């Protein structure tokens, strides 16, 4: 008796807590479509649109004193800076496996721009142009560069338009000495990137420019010569500019990656998954529709088949759904399209426990037991079957969770949580409802 009161109190508390936790589940918008309250349920990339990237740090060219693990650690930090500057709400940036980095940008507006900002190494270098020798010295008759002819102290890099340029290989200064970069306009209103160096870098910059007056200094980004202005005089104060016929957006993005710093090694994008906002909205709409229709059919079916007892099963079903949504919010789980399928499937499967119980009760009634005894026996005898039945599905859900990439993980989570909750609602809650009446003469089942 005391146990039953405890369970009733627990159920009531859980219901109230769940409503408080979960409301409002999805974004509430006014008639104009403006956001009023943010929904509590965390929607996956496939439902709200966005981009998922998997990067591999190319550790082939790393200096000997840097391990691939350190390079990834550093890359992770820099990517985090760049993405913060990009202004995406709630990005996820994390390591995966031995050498991968996973980035999720939910709701990102311009995936291509994000890819170009994330994917570039952004290694800024300053080198002197070689003006004493001609490019043609290192070319064959067709104008192609012959690598074997280029001595180690020289190198040939493409310019911004792809035209080859002859430089001295010695790296005079890199972007590592940079403390700030921002967009400014030159005298003709064209965007340029102005940078500022740290004190030490500033001193070196002054020394370099002082020693090379009237020669050309190449400004190189990711092995491409952006500009090679002639040094007019020694530049003190540690600041300079990069020009290169940028659009305003390009200049802004360049300033952004320069501020965030260069990646320690190039990264390769090995997996890119983009979902546009249309598909996300479609999926939500279709998920909701199939959910409503599916659940309605089950509810109707239970009432037609089991009458009043079917209503009891439906109530526990409704609570199952409420608790499941609350659990998803509380666990900060992400609802994906397969996750919605998991929720719907759970509802179908959750009926199973009640079906097992009701079929048992019917059998016990046929054996001539009183209604009260039949109900109690039905619950008692069905218990082991119910637990068995759920454990088998839970095993596969657990494996899927381990294995899971984003959407599949969402499915495994909803299925697991849903099944665990269904055991509580189908066994405990429905029994509490049956126990409201002490004496039964007839049972509608």
């Amino acid at each position: 008796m005391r146990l039953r009161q405890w369970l009733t109190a627990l159920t009531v508390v859980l219901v109230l807590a769940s409503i408080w936790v979960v409301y409002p589940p999805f974004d509430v918008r006014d008639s104009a479509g403006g956001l009023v309250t943010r929904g509590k349920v965390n929607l996956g990339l496939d439902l709200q649109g966005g981009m998922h990237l998997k990067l591999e740090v190319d550790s082939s060219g790393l200096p000997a004193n840097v391990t691939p693990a350190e390079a990834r650690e550093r890359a992770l930090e820099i990517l985090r800076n760049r993405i913060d500057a990009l202004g995406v709400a709630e990005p996820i940036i994390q390591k995966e496996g031995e050498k991968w980095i996973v980035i999720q940008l939910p709701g990102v507006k311009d995936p291509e721009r994000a890819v170009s900002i994330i994917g570039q190494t952004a290694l800024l270098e300053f080198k002197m142009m070689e003006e004493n020798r001609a490019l043609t010295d290192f070319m064959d008759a067709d104008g192609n560069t012959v690598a074997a002819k280029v001595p180690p102290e020289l190198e040939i890099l493409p310019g911004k338009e792809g035209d080859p340029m002859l430089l001295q290989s010695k790296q005079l200064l890199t972007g590592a000495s940079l403390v700030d970069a921002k967009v400014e306009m030159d005298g003709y209103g064209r965007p340029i990137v102005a940078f500022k160096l740290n004190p030490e870098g500033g001193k070196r910059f002054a020394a370099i420019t002082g020693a090379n007056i009237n020669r050309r200094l190449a400004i190189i980004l990711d092995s491409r010569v952006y500009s090679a202005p002639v040094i007019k005089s020694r530049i003190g104060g540690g600041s300079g500019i990069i020009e290169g016929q940028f659009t305003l957006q390009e200049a802004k993005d360049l300033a952004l990656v320069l501020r965030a710093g260069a990646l320690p090694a190039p990264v390769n994008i090995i997996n890119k998954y983009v979902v546009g906002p249309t598909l996300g909205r479609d999926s939500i709409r279709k998920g909701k529709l199939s959910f409503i229709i599916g659940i309605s059919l089950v509810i109707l079916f239970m009432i037609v088949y089991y009458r009043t007892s079917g209503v009891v099963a439906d109530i526990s079903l409704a609570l199952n759904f409420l608790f499941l949504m609350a659990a998803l919010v509380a666990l900060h789980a992400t609802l994906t399209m397969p996750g919605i399928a998991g929720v719907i499937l759970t509802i179908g499967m959750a009926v199973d426990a009640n079906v097992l119980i009701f079929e048992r009760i019917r059998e016990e009634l046929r054996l001539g037991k009183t209604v009260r005894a039949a109900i109690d026996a039905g619950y008692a005898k069905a218990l082991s079957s119910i637990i068995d039945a759920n454990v088998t599905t839970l095993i596969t859900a657990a494996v899927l969770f381990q294995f899971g990439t984003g959407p599949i993980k969402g499915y495994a989570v909803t299925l697991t949580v849903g099944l665990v909750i269904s055991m509580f609602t189908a066994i405990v809650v429905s029994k509490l409802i049956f126990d409201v009446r002490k004496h039964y003469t007839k049972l509608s089942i």
Partner: protein
Amino acid sequence: MMQLIRNDMNIPFTKIRWIGFAFSAVLMTLGLYATLQLSLGRAKMGVEFSGGTTVEVEFPKAIKTEEVRNALKADEFQDSSIQTIADPGRYKFMLRIQATSLKTSEVSTRVLQVLQKNLPDNPAVILASEDVGPSVSAHLRQQALFALFWAMVGIVIYIWWRFDFRFSVAATLATIHDILAVLGIMYLLGFEMNLLLLTALLTIAGYSLNDTVVVFDRIRENLRHDRKAEYDGLVNRSINETLSRTIVTSLATMLVVIALLFLGGEVIYTFSLAMTIGLVIGTYSTIFVASNFISEWNARSPVPR
């Protein structure tokens, strides 16, 4: 009281078991064939397992598959497969691009550029795209095999802990039967092996097993209560006693899965279809395969009771 199955129903399932065995032999052969084709790399696989690019595009105006193909062919995409996505009143296509010389992350971007350039009057919009590099797909293939392996190990351990030797063998066989049957049918229908199909297969394994477990529970219970009864008759009685529950549960789950199949949209269509087939197969194998296997075994070498 409404009953789909009358409580005095007594279909001689054990007597007609050869029909089921023959049908299952066909299904399993089909499934094994599909497995063989998959392992030889001859069956269709999703991009996540094979690497490559898929792009789901929508056009604002009506357009024929041939026009899309020609637009892609006009530039570097000679070899692509194009499927229309059924969605009344909308013009959606799933494009599958075979290996190109482009970098992994650039293929989908380039596809859209090519479509917009060559079909300027009907500008395509990307609904979703996925580019998968070879290292990622190799990793996922390996993980998929691990998942299947560990799911089976988990299930077998559970069954062997819960039941004695013969029941364990029967339940394990029935589970393998269900996975193979669904895989075989999906292969025959021309679906590719992808992550969602794998997810459905694992879910089916768990779900159909739970049906089987309920019947086995009943056989064990009846064996305990009725030590003198003839074995086949007892197994048959157990199947019939649980038949109502088996059918009602499957029906309830079927209702939601059918709703998903028809209304859930293209993203989870493969999953919903595999689940629908799996539910039917799972119910069938519970009634016709698992318990009858026990009967057959007992007929050949009776268990002392």
